[in-house]
């Protein structure tokens, strides 16, 4: 948790979000998606999704996912002590979903989120938008829309802080092996 340095400040992050909103707009027009449903992954993905949702002026309320019950490391690290309910207020059946997260790293969080969404129903499609697309993928998952591709060492850890103001910080990688540590949210 120590030795964190600022990677990008609020104005930089906000302009990346503007760029992402534009790319999402183009993408859904190209795909002729009229009315997408946006879902953010807790915690950073929700902060990001709230802004994108507003910029795009989406009609349906924002959904939120807490993937704690779908993590693949439960048998190793046990229950996340800070679980929140997932909230998908609109049925996902036959809907085009834009799934939003802050950092795409190993791909394991997105795998968990996809599994959870399918327990709510059968969407027509899922598009993935992440603020940061960093190296270190362990699963065949790629973003459709992204804000930034930083070049990072494997032991470097990039985190979105927020909700107000947003910022990206860089620190040594933390493994959530004990309850005092930050949850490893880049999975």
């Amino acid at each position: 948790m120590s030795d964190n340095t600022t990677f990008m400040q609020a104005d930089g992050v906000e302009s990346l979000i503007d760029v992402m909103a534009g790319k999402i707009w183009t993408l859904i027009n190209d795909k002729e998606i009229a009315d997408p449903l946006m879902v953010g992954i807790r915690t950073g993905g929700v902060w990001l999704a709230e802004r994108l949702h507003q910029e795009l002026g989406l009609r349906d309320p924002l959904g939120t996912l807490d993937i704690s019950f779908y993590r693949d490391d439960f048998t190793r690290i046990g229950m996340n002590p800070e679980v929140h309910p997932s909230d998908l207020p609109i049925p996902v059946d036959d809907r085009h979903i834009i799934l939003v997260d802050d950092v795409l790293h190993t791909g394991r969080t997105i795998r968990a989120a996809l599994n959870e969404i399918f327990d709510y129903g059968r969407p027509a499609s899922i598009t993935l938008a992440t603020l940061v697309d960093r190296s270190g993928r362990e699963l065949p998952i790629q973003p459709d829309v992204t804000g930034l591709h930083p070049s990072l060492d494997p032991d470097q850890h990039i985190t979105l802080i927020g909700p107000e103001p947003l910022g990206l910080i860089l620190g040594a990688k933390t493994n959530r092996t004990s309850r005092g540590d930050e949850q490893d949210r880049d999975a």
Partner: protein
Amino acid sequence: MSLSNKALQLDDEQRLLHFLTIDGLDRSILTEILDTAEGFTGVSERTIKKVPLCRGKVVANLFFENSTRTRTTFELAAKRLSADVLNLNISASATSKGETLLDTLRNLEAMHVDMFIVRHATSGAAHFIAQHADPGVGVINAGDGRHAHPTQAMLDMFTIRRHKGEFVGLRVAIVGDILHSRVARSQILALNTLGVSEVRVVAPQTLLPSDARSLGVHVYHDFDEGIRDVDVIIMLRLQKERMRGAMLPSEHEYFSLYGLTERRLALAKPDAIVMHPGPINRGVEMDSKVADGSKSVILQQVSYGIAIRMAIISMVIGTQNQRTQEVAV
């Protein structure tokens, strides 16, 4: 007692290894259970009412005493966590405790059961099993004798928090057969740990334990006095099967003195809620109009029981998983 309860139930990082009694658990762990349960409440409303958290785990419901509601909600909770469930109804009269209990335990461990959910007529049965279970095997107490029923207490706390938001400032009355009630003991401990302003017990002298006041409660014999201005009324079931001799004059007389009627309910706060662990003896502990009335949250307690048990099962299995890995390393 409380130190050993703490040591048996929590690991070095204050995570649940077993869930046997509220005694020895502090406010932060009780709050963590309630918060985790909050996360599970939505699962029951989804298309697929399951999460994959405990996939591949085997949970054994070891019931030496009859139960419908508790066993069923434990079974449903384990299944919603994707665990496999074994239901074993073992007649207590056929076993001679101690050795037989251990034999049962060893046999089930040989089948690689990961968790025992235990109900037994003898106080301390779940503790006994927890002390003898292999590392990696968690134990949950689903009611032992007159001692404790901690998951019932936690689902009651969850129900109260969902309706009242905070515990601080609340006045709670527990009414009825305190003497025979393991539920009441666990509730009193939980309410005081979570910091309610006042816990009242309302009962005739014959249905109060002799040490009632040492539990940290205000004792009332007059129901009308005891219910006045309370936020929460918890009615207890009259445990006729546990009573011997003339503890009660008659059910009719009990109802007239300690039955919850609409008239009495009007003495509580206007937004008071009415709870009961079930099954209700209608016309004995409460009038049907109250049981089915707008202030009754009795059926919500049953639904919340699933979320609370999902939380406790997954927290215990999560900690025990880690324990086996540490042993393996």
